[in-house]
Every structure is written in structure tokens, then in C-alpha cells.
């Protein structure tokens, strides 16, 4: 029971440290000298966050960039060798291909399902419950979701009773399930992992898009109805154009989430059977293979993939701020 005690003590220390820091910072800001008071207060307000961001994000990112041009233990500069390794090694090419599939399929599927569901249940009876159902996986960890779906895919040889829902459904429908464990069949297994990601993110898409749909002015919808527009035309001419900005935000958020997918791969296949993706391979190379150079190069590749989205976001925000002025 010693363990329990030292852990609870640590928790106490953490919480006490929090109140200590809060008290100290506010006290310092209060007691700041009268001359240049604003500057001191700015220092106390902006200082901690700036310091943490510089030490925790900016500096490490630059250092990782540097590591990507060095050998595995950082003792030698190797130029572009790590990047060359990335684009010539067969396993890593598969990793890159998988990441490509993830990026192409996941955001599209999750956004489409979220939007479809949001439209289908809009202003229907039981809307709140229906929303909670789809939204619930957002509260589940990727690890938990991975376990839930691993169980759905669990395969037993055809002469035994199946315990996984998917093989059983296929059996009921008369498909041949002799093919063996589903999670071992590349490239099908990558799509089975993508299902889990879509399952998690569709709820997010649905909530944001549902709010956007409710914001469409009702008179526009009424006017279209009076003109005798069909549901199909309504969707393409009114709903979709109105919620387009939200669709873009949702799509990009999911894309960023997908690029960083790690837990699902770790839980379901450990990256075996050709299911690894860049974010997982980075962890694997750096922390299990001790190949810091390779890991760093993969991290940089990830960063490069996110870069266009960052650019777009910053552009959008600056435009909005300009308009607000």
C-alpha cells in the first residue's frame, strides 16, 4: 500500500503547487512597483505561458528539425540521409501509402456521415437522444475504441462459433470467411482501422454541422419549399452552400486528427501486417528502435503535411480580424 500513499501524496503536491503558483503570480502582479507597473503585470501574465510554449513547443520543434539531419544518436551530421531512407525503404513507403489512404478516406467519410445524420435527424422527434448516440464515441479513448472494434473484428476459424460481430454478420449473409483474421489482411486492415477513426470523429462533424444547419435562416427554407424544391435540390442548392464554411473547418480538424493517429494502430495491430502510419512509425523508430534520426525525419514529414492547413487557418483568421476592424 506504499504505492497508494506516495501517489496520493503526489496528487496533493500537484494540487498544492497549482494553488501556490496561482497565489504567487497574482500576489506578484498586485505588488508590482508603481513605476512601469503595466509592464511588470504584462510580464507576470504573459510570462509563464510564453516560457512554457518556447521551452515545450518551439525549441523542441527546432531541435527535432536538427535531429532529422543527424544520425541515430545525434553524434554526426548525415545530410539528407534520413529523408532518403524514408523514401527508399519498402516498409516506410507502405507507411506513407497508408497515411495517404487515411488522409483521403477518413475526413471525407466522417464529414459525410456526420452531415447526413445531422440532416436526417434535424427537428425530428428524439433529436437529442439521437445526437448523443453518435456523439458518445468522442468521450471514449482511442484505446477504448480500438478495443471495442478489435472485438467486433475478432475472428475464429469457420468451424467454430464466431465471437466477433463482423465475421458473424458475414457468415449470416453467406460470405466465405475462410480468409483468416481480418486485421492481418493488408490492405483491407487499414480500412478496418479507418472505420474506428470515422466512428470516433463522425459525432464531432455531426454536432458542428447540425449547429450550422440550425443557423440557416428559416425564411430561405420556407421560400424554397413554396417553390416546390425537392429534398435533393434543397441539399445541393441551399443546405450545402450555407454550411460550407463549417464543412471546411470540420474537414480540416479531422485531417489534423488523422495525421496524428497513433493510439488506434498501437492498440489494434501494433503497426504489424502493413498497418503502420507516419505518426506511429515515428514513435516506433524513435522510442523502440532508438533511431532518433529516423524518428525526427518522420516527425518533420508529419509537420510538412500539416503546414498547408496552418497556412490556410492563419490566412482565414487574419482576414476575419481585418474585417472585424
Amino acid at each position: 500500500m506504499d504505492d497508494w500513499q506516495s501517489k496520493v501524496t503526489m496528487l496533493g503536491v500537484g494540487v498544492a503547487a497549482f494553488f501556490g503558483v496561482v497565489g504567487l503570480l497574482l500576489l506578484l502582479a498586485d505588488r508590482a512597483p508603481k513605476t512601469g507597473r503595466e509592464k511588470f503585470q504584462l510580464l507576470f501574465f504573459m510570462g509563464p505561458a510564453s516560457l512554457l510554449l518556447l521551452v515545450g513547443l518551439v525549441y523542441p520543434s527546432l531541435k527535432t528539425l536538427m535531429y532529422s539531419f543527424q544520425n541515430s544518436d545525434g553524434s554526426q551530421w548525415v545530410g539528407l540521409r534520413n529523408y532518403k531512407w524514408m523514401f527508399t525503404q519498402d516498409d516506410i513507403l507502405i507507411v506513407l501509402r497508408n497515411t495517404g489512404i487515411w488522409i483521403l478516406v477518413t475526413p471525407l467519410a466522417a464529414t459525410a456521415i456526420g452531415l447526413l445524420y445531422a440532416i436526417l435527424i434535424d427537428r425530428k422527434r428524439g433529436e437529442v437522444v439521437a445526437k448523443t448516440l453518435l456523439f458518445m464515441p468522442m468521450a471514449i479513448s482511442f484505446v477504448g475504441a480500438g478495443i471495442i472494434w478489435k472485438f467486433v473484428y475478432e475472428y475464429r476459424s469457420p468451424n467454430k462459433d464466431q465471437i466477433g460481430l463482423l465475421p458473424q454478420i458475414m457468415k449470416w449473409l453467406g460470405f466465405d470467411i475462410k480468409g483468416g483474421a481480418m486485421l492481418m489482411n493488408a490492405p483491407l486492415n487499414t480500412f478496418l482501422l479507418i472505420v474506428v477513426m470515422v466512428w470516433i470523429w463522425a459525432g464531432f462533424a455531426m454536432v458542428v454541422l447540425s449547429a450550422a444547419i440550425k443557423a440557416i435562416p428559416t425564411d430561405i427554407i420556407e421560400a424554397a419549399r413554396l417553390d416546390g424544391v425537392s429534398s435533393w435540390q434543397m441539399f445541393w442548392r441551399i443546405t450545402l452552400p450555407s454550411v460550407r464554411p463549417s464543412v471546411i473547418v470540420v474537414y480540416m480538424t479531422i485531417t489534423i486528427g488523422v495525421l496524428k493517429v497513433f493510439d488506434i494502430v498501437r492498440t489494434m495491430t501494433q503497426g504489424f501486417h502493413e498497418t503502420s502510419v507516419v505518426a506511429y512509425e515515428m514513435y516506433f523508430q524513435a522510442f523502440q528502435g532508438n533511431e532518433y534520426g529516423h524518428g525526427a525525419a518522420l516527425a518533420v514529414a508529419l509537420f510538412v503535411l500539416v503546414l498547408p492547413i496552418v497556412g490556410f487557418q492563419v490566412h482565414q483568421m487574419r482576414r476575419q480580424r481585418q474585417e472585424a476592424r
Partner: protein
Amino acid sequence: MNSATVAPRTRARRGHRPDPSGPTMAGRVRKQLTSRAASLVALLIGIMWTLPTLGLLVSSFRPSLKIRTSGWWTAFNPDDMEFTTRNYTDVLFGETGDLSQYFLNSLVITVPSVLFPIFFGAIAAYALSWMKWRGRDWVFIGIFALQVVPLQMCLIPLLEMFSSFGLEGTDRFVTVWLAHTMFALPLCIFLLHNFMSELPGELFEAARVDGADHSRIFRSIALPLIIPALASFGIFQFLWVWNDLLVGMVFAGGTPDTGPLTAALAELAGTRGTQWQRLTAGAFVSLVVPMAVFLSLQRYFIRGLLAGGLKG
């Protein structure tokens, strides 16, 4: 980018609408058919989104032999119904399982990792919204852009830095708190800034005329008014940290002295010849806490989601 996603929640839902199906019989029939099909599709999606979780939940209460040899959908067969809580007692307090240690670790990791970014984020958001200083806009845009830097970019150097502290045993929790705080700050500052800068400026001007300084205004005006936003972010961060695997595995490891619950479960899921009786119960032990938080505070969570940008 955010104004686009924020919907006015005040718009009243319309109770009665004129019947849109038109006067003709054929029109009415067609309308009914499409609405049937629509309900059916919605129902199918709803089932697909709940059945997998339900299957795991049912299985977690079945004896281990049953889990291994028959589908969970046969569990309610009246001839052969058998349920037990043994998987839970085994996995929580059994000699081999003992997930309770990991559960406690997750708790120790999560609480400070939620508290610290909220405070540092709140004061920074105040400085970025209501203090005037040169370069403020550029700093804000920089923080905004940091939101999407993949944390993979930071792991190797941070781990080196933290190992040089020489912390051991339960002291390593400190490094996990630090890492989570650092990674959370961009989103936290951005989200709180969105709320903070919307507060009415007259309030702040009036306080300044009365001679209050920034630390006073922050404490007595800004902070009380953004409590709902703090709650939104708090829930986000709670779910994020509790459910996190990568940061926990890199900085706390997967051992019972500091490893989080997710690391233990991922390990369990990865072993050959999966022990479903432990995995099903273990997964639900880890799901209970975020589910409870989520269901009871869903409203705040959704509000934060609609106002928030991208998680880094």
C-alpha cells in the same frame, strides 16, 4: 474561422410548419416514403454507433469461457444465461491484473494537467485581449499556429530534457504534468481568448476609470465572467488527458508506478491470445470516468467545441 461554426442558439425552433407535401396524393405518398427511408438510414447509423460498445459491455459481464467460445449476442438465450462481475473484481484487484494502480495513476496525471493550463491560459488570454502592448497580434497568431504543430515534433527533445532532471518513481508525474500543460496551452489560450475578448469593453473601461489595475480587473471582472469557458476547456482537457496514450507512454512509461490506464490497456490488447475477459472489463473501467463527465456536462462540452479551433 470560428464565427462560421458558431450557430446562434437563441433561434427558436419552429413548432408548427405548414404541411410541405403539397396537395396531391402522389406527392404525399412520396413524401412519406422518403421520410421512412430517411428514418431508416438514421436508425442504421445509430445502431452502428452503439452496437459495438454494447457488445463489449455485455461481454464484460460474461464468464471468460463464454466470451471465448460464443458470440455476445447469444448471451440472452434463456437456456444458457450466465452473468458475473468476476471480470471486474479480477481486473481491478486480482493478483495478475491490478488495473486499480493504473487507474490511480491516470487520476494523478489528469488533475494537475487540467488545472495548470487553465490558469496559465486564462492570464495569457487576458493579456492578449485587454492589455495593450506592441506585437500583441503577432504573438496571438503565433500561438494560434502552434495549435496544429504535431506533438510528435516535440517528443524526442522534451524526453531528453526531462531525463536530464533525473526524476525517478512517482516523481516522474511532474514531467507528465509539464508535458500536458505545454501541449494544451495553444488551444487553451485560443479558446479562452475567444470568450475573453467578447466581454463588453465598457466594463473594463469603467473599472480603469475607478482606478483598478490589471491584476484587480482580471480577478474581479474577467475571471468570474469566463467561468463557463473555463468549464468548457476543463472538460476538453480532462477527456484529452484521461484518454491520451502517446504522451503518457513517452513520459510516464507503461509501468504500474506511473503508467496511465490507457497504456496498460494498450499493452493488454497487444499481447498474443487476447484475454478478452480482462480486456472487456478493463476497457469499461477506463470508459466509466470520461462517460460520466461527458454525459453530465455535455452542454459545456458542445459549447466549447463550437467555439474552439483545432486541437494540437
